[in-house]
């Protein structure tokens, strides 16, 4: 293959708020350019993991190379780099964008600008990308392209005079999108003969080929046999194979300046190929690495325990394997008095946590018990240095604590003006600090608050959605730690403190949370052989108490004409149901109980 003329390459991403049609548009682009035959065409091809397709979200970044003969008669290579659509994975979005020169900004022509539209546009602008506005779903009767264009101009300051009008669903306007990419997005530049400089924007672990690194070449070229170096980790490796995504991996002799593709270099752990790192030549280093990479830090933690204690080793193996592919998640062994041996795991966010848990259960056939998620607190003991505590059970007693800090986020909420009052109340209830409020257009307001991350974790998004009848959207970023007046609330079952149910809460809401949680637990935990008191306590002080009354009647009266089998089957089911519960002392507790704290609604 000849060296590609960079002038015939376009590297772009698609950015959008969730459900605005990003994946459908990507499908159409692949279809119309015959990148994928119809036979191979599955709904939303780019979302490869089953979980992604089921949940309709993109978890890992993906890339695909499209060949396109433009109306000017020239052949172009268009590299589409898909980005994860959830705020848990913001860092991956930003690295994917750094691999491009431009982005299609997809906005639903009836929904208009949403919080993630703004957040992602800002990420794209930070990366100096050319932004091509695309109004999607113009076939819908409720579409209001003029209003939405106005909103884009007002809220994002982006010229919409040449905005593209499409319906990814019907295929209308897709040709114009392809032409628009070529006309409006700049071709890559860079030195073909300069030392190699390539950005790692993703990496995955394949059990046959090792780590597959997704790269964008900014300078020079990369080909098999070359000795390469990861500038941040210092890892040196020899290139075995390079190729492109069409969308399946296809080997090519080399990747040169401006191209997007993959590199395989006999690396066994994705830890050594950090997203955002720069690859260069071992002998001839590029003078300056690309704008830095940072480690994605876990912010949400929970305990994962095998329901069957004998599965501990299986769980550890599963975590080890999963980690190969997902360096952003961390874990370490922990022991709970109530639950036995397990792991404290850290995630980028709640969605990330759910996904990891689901993958472990699905791919490794494990039955897991998850404790309620919490944030990591910075705790200073009297006369000591600050330490991070990611398990509420580890919080020292109040007397030993000099101060506690908790993580805060800066949250941006977009909503129609009539709901502002309700949302300000919500943020107030959640210990939010008002920062500012801005009218983006007559019917769209942007609210800006600082909020403890823990307050945002518990049902905040659901409340936002219900209080704005679905019209509100949000985005957030982490802004560091602030001191708070926090206490640990312990839960006692039948007089025994259950460490796995402890959680940390602001002093002012401890009483309310404690009371609501014990009520919830009374509903969730089935009646037992004995009365079981449930108590919420801070230290020795009991805040709330409920009693699960002893089970009184569980007996099958009739014996249907000698049908003993039916009776036995029923008893068998009863026994299986019991096995799926966790035995804490003499109390049988269903798994949901450990997540009950999430269901305590602040708003009753």
């Amino acid at each position, binding site marked *: 293959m000849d060296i590609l003329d960079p002038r015939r390459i376009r590297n772009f991403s698609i950015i959008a708020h969730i459900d605005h049609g990003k994946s459908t548009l990507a499908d159409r682009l692949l279809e119309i350019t015959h990148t994928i035959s119809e036979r191979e065409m599955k709904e939303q091809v780019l979302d490869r993991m089953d979980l992604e397709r089921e949940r309709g979200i993109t978890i890992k970044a993906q890339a695909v190379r499209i060949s396109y003969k433009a109306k000017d008669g020239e052949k172009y290579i268009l590299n589409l780099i898909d980005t994860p659509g959830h705020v848990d994975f913001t860092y991956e979005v930003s690295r994917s964008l750094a691999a491009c020169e431009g982005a299609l900004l997809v906005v639903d022509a009836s929904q208009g600008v949403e919080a993630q539209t703004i957040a992602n546009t800002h990420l794209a602008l930070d990366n100096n990308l050319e932004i091509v506005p695309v109004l999607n779903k113009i076939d819908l009767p409720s579409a209001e392209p003029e209003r939405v264009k106005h909103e884009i101009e007002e809220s994002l300051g982006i010229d919409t005079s040449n905005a593209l009008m499409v319906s990814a669903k019907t295929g209308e306007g897709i040709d114009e999108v392809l032409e628009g990419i070529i006309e409006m997005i700049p071709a890559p530049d860079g030195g073909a003969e300069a030392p190699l400089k390539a950005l790692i924007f993703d990496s995955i672990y394949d059990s046959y080929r090792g780590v597959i690194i997704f790269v964008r070449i900014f300078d020079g070229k990369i080909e098999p046999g070359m000795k390469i170096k990861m500038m941040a980790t210092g890892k040196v490796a020899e290139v075995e194979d390079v190729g492109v995504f069409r969308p399946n991996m296809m080997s090519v002799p080399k990747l040169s300046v401006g191209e997007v593709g993959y590199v395989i270099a006999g690396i066994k752990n994705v830890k050594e190929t950090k997203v955002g790192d720069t690859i260069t030549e071992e002998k001839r280093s590029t003078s300056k690495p690309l704008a830095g990479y940072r480690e994605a830090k876990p912010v949400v933690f929970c305990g994962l325990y095998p329901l069957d204690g004998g599965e501990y080793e299986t769980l550890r193996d599963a975590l080890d394997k999963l980690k190969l592919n997902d360096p952003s998640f961390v874990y370490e062994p922990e022991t709970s008095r109530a639950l036995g041996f397990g792991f404290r795991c850290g995630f980028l966010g709640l969605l990330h946590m759910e996904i990891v848990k689901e993958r472990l259960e699905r791919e490794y056939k494990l039955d897991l018990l998850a404790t309620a998620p919490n944030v990591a607190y910075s705790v200073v003991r009297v006369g000591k240095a600050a330490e991070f505590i990611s398990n509420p059970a580890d919080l020292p007693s109040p007397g030993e604590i000099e101060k506690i800090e908790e993580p805060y986020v800066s949250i941006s909420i977009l909503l129609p003006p009539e709901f502002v009052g309700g949302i300000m109340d919500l943020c107030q209830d959640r210990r939010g600090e008002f920062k500012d409020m801005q009218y983006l257009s007559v019917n769209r307001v942007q609210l800006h608050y600082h909020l403890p991350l823990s307050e945002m974790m518990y049902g905040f998004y659901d409340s936002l959605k219900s209080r704005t009848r679905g019209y509100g959207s949000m985005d957030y970023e982490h802004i560091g730690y602030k001191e708070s007046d926090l206490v640990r609330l312990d839960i006692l079952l039948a007089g025994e403190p259950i460490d796995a149910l402890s959680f940390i809460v602001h002093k002012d809401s401890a009483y309310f949370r404690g009371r609501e949680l014990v009520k919830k637990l009374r509903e969730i935990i089935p009646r037992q*052989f004995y009365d079981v008191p449930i108590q919420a306590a801070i230290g020795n002080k009991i805040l709330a108490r409920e009693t699960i*009354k002893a089970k009184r*009647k569980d*007996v099958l009266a*009739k014996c249907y*004409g*000698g049908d*003993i089998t039916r009776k*036995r089957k029923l008893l068998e089911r009863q*026994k299986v149901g019991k096995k799926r519960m966790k035995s804490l002392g003499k109390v049988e507790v269903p798994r949901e109980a450990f997540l009950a704290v999430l269901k305590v609604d602040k708003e009753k």
Partner: protein
Amino acid sequence: MVLNKPLGLYIHIPFCKQRCSYCDFNSHSGLEDLYDQYIKSICVEIEKSVQEQTTFSEVVSIYFGGGTPSILPTHCLEKILTTCSSLFRVSERAEITIEANPETITREKLKKLKTAGFNRLSIGAQSFDDELLKILGRKHSSKEVNKCYSYAREVGFDNINLDLIFGIPEQTIGCWNDTLEKTVGLGPDHISAYGLEVHQETVLCKQIDDGLFKVSEEDIQADMYLNCITFLSDKRMIQYELSNFAKPGKECKHNLLYWRNENYLGFGAGAHSHIDNLRFKNADNPISYIKKLKTGQDVSEKYEELSDSIALSETIFLNLRLIDGINLEEFEAKFGFKLHDVYSRQIDDLVKKELLVYHPPSGAGGENLRLTKKGLLLANQVFAEFIPD
């Protein structure tokens, strides 16, 4: 089949005028045209079954259950009974029961049944509150129960059971006590008192889901059950099983066969049989039952060979339904090991929880393991412990 083991016969009549709202059992309405063919088929099945036997146990009980067996004309019932008596070795003292719904009964019919050889009548009274009978979808009133009962006495039935249900939606404890008093007032020989179970896909279940009625709460059901036990024991009706009470000597022989895990053969659609380590069950649908017999096919659909561990656990949870519980000597004689050797953990735990207790038996030496009063209420929780993994 071991020769000297007792044997029971069960005849299933899967027909009803109309299904009751709580019923999820094998019963059908509107199949009157099938009666004749169905009776013929049952007789054919009995003949076939006898031909397949190599030894003959003594039949100690014949039980006509339903559905509504009393819906059939007497000559049909008589024909089945005659077939049984002529082909099996039926004990002279055999208990021969028929279930009857009050609205299907006349004095004349009862007289014929008595003459035909039925010596035990089980009346589906269910309640003496007419409103509750309507909720249950029963087709009779409490007045008809009284009438049916006095006819039965008049024609000479000296062994009468009344079936009762408690925990009916809208039923108060007062209502239930009233039904108990009226029942005892009649002076039956036997009372079965069942807690209502609301099964999926019944009319009643849908009505409860639709909010028409409220399902009776666990605590109320427990109180009703306890009231029943206390009240009936005061009236010298001895509780001998979880749901069954009888005057001394009038315990239902047929049900005792089930609970002692003895042998029984079931005839008719959906009927269950248990012979030694084998359980089997006939086709449920009366039409396919008839068709299978006509075409010479096997009417049994499900065969289950009981493994030792399943047979063991069934024996335990069936025996424990009896108030006397498991006789440990008999158990050891039957299985060749001590019960406690296999289930020490479970038994010790359940004894500690006061659900099981060791007790000297009413009769011969040795010890029994039986449910406590608390255990009676939580019997399923106890039984589940003896189910193999």
